């Protein structure tokens, strides 16, 4: 059986896979396809000129993944142009975030990136204008149950996901990077002013801004289902950066907070992905991590690993639950959290008794 570190090393030291048995290859394919990282793995290997030694079956699945990722890439580029046309005039800025932005910038993290949705940032005061404009263009809000709808509208940093009626693309419209309810949402106007850049006529964050956002998204959150993919994003973003990148990153932390999240990200990249950091960054991180609780760092290290029943470490479902609970505590003040947890618990219990799909609305037949 493969260990999770072996899976990480398949990315950071592709030559380590040359001794894999067919069984190990098989497990790697199944784990990476599950983690939506097969295309990324293959493209990295190809860039190193090392894809030749892949067994035939592995090669076929890798090429399938590459084709699917390539399709997503062209969809993202096309949707971005469409969005610019549809809402570009309605908003002072329209900024692409995360996966879509990596692809547009053609930076490392765009390599083999697949998406479940396209993330966009606009100022809060134009959200409703933008939303109705999008509706005219065929983007419809996904049907949510009443509780989730309220959650988004009142407390979140984004509105409920919208989906295009014919193309099926899912759009997440953000007005901040962190939930309003956390009390830690950042001064987004100022943040955008210092981090934005234009690539091929499209606004995105600069490299430090992307890393900052990605670290928040991963470590100030309650969802670790794509955590391993997000770690590889961070790794690709930080790989081959110069000192300037780190100066900018730490400047963002002192202006907008979330130093802890960035430090954890850099620490894990150093420990598990073999990233070399400038000396002053290294000592800064050692000092900060030293002050954190050891179990928390360990927990985050574990839940950002690949998770699969075919790995020695398994699916880590118990640790995931703890990490989700941690995320909720971070994001919500206690009174809200108690209410939210109560509601979710009630619903979870209903699902336990009546089945997972109790709240799933049946399809019209």
């Amino acid at each position, binding site marked *: 059986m493969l260990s999770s570190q072996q899976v990480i090393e398949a990315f950071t030291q592709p030559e380590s896979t040359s001794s894999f048995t067919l069984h190990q290859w098989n497990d790697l394919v199944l784990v990476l*396809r*599950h983690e939506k990282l097969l295309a990324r793995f293959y493209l990295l290997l190809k860039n190193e000129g090392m894809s030749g030694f892949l067994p035939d*079956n592995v090669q076929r*699945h890798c*090429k*399938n993944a590459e*084709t699917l990722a*390539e399709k997503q890439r062209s969809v993202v580029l096309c949707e971005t142009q469409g969005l610019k046309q549809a809402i570009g005039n309605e908003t002072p800025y329209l900024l692409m975030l995360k996966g879509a932005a990596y692809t547009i910038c053609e930076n490392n993290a765009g390599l083999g990136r697949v998406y479940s949705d396209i993330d966009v940032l606009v100022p809060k005061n134009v959200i409703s204008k933008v939303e109705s404009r999008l509706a005219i263009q065929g983007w419809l809000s996904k049907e949510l149950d009443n509780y989730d709808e309220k959650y988004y509208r009142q407390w979140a940093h984004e509105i409920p996901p919208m989906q295009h009626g014919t193309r099926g693309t899912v759009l997440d419209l953000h007005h901040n990077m962190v939930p309003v309810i956390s009390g830690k949402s950042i001064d987004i106007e100022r943040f955008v002013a210092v981090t934005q850049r234009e690539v091929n006529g499209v606004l995105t964050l600069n490299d430090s801004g992307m890393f900052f956002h990605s670290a928040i998204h991963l470590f100030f959150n309650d969802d670790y289902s794509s955590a391993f993919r997000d770690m590889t994003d961070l790794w690709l973003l930080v790989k081959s950066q110069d000192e300037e990148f780190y100066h900018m990153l730490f400047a963002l932390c002192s202006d907008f907070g979330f130093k802890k999240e960035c430090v954890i990200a850099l620490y894990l990249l150093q420990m598990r992905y073999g990233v070399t950091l400038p000396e002053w960054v290294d000592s800064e991180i050692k000092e900060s991590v030293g002050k954190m609780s050891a179990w928390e760092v360990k927990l985050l290290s574990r839940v950002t690993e690949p998770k699969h029943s075919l790995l020695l470490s398994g699916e880590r479902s118990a640790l995931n639950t703890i990490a989700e609970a941690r995320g909720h505590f971070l994001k919500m003040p206690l009174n809200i959290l108690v209410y939210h947890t109560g509601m979710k618990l009630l619903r979870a219990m209903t699902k336990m008794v009546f089945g997972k799909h109790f709240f799933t609305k049946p*399809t019209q037949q």
Partner: protein
Amino acid sequence: MAHKRILLCSPFAFHITSHHQSVIDNLENLYGKRVIQPENYDGFIDYRVSVTHSGGIRRLINDQARFQCDKMEPFKPLNRSQAFAMLEWGLNWVVAAHEVSHLIIHSAVLAKDGKAVVFPAPPGSGKSTLTAYLSRNGWRLLSDEMALITPLTSTVTPFVRPVCLKNDSISLVKSWYPDDVFSTIAKDTHKGDVVHMAPGDVAVARDTEQAEVVGIVFPKYNKDVFFDVYDMDQATAYTALAENAFNYTVLQEQGVKSVIKLVENASSFEVEYNSLEELDSFLTEEVLGAAHVK
């Protein structure tokens, strides 16, 4: 208890986990020797799929079947009695969603002497009844559901699976071939009542033998029409074929070129029929017979 089996269904190997005994029974009944115990298999597994119970005590009251692959759940749960049909549809979905090394067309594929005809058709057109009939009358079944076309060629790879019979055709086909192997019935699915029929020994024995597509025939059963055939021009055939190609947009430029290639190298027809014998002789004499002229 979770049962585990390997299904060797060329060109893919599936690892199947199921809580439902009915799934395993039907699987072994319909796929025969192609189903083996995991401990007897040492090769590569392409996909791990499962058909499991619904969670919670619902299981005790009104158990459902859930299909998953790579933690993806493409369908809402179905009634327990539909679990095996769900596995069949799930396997179709897995292949259609992932196998972009082939252009995949939603169609039946049957061949004679290495020359294949694809039958793309919407549900209700009588495609599966036609498949069942032809596959027992001198045609080799390559697939009832999907044509796996090598991009930019006319080569089709068999994916030999059970034939999915619906509603009235169930008793009809059972009366024609009482000695064939059928699954238990899945009642009231979104397609109505469904029974799967084993593909037959010849099809399975030759399940790695590719064929060349020489005909594209859009069939439509009509009880009032004995047999009518309409030539289809290439542009119309292209549009109709593209509509039935699951992954043609994913393949982008290559997808478009592949559909063009396929249409250019085959003759295309629309047929309306109530006589399967007449359709069979048209296919054999006109479609296959004319193929060498092209």
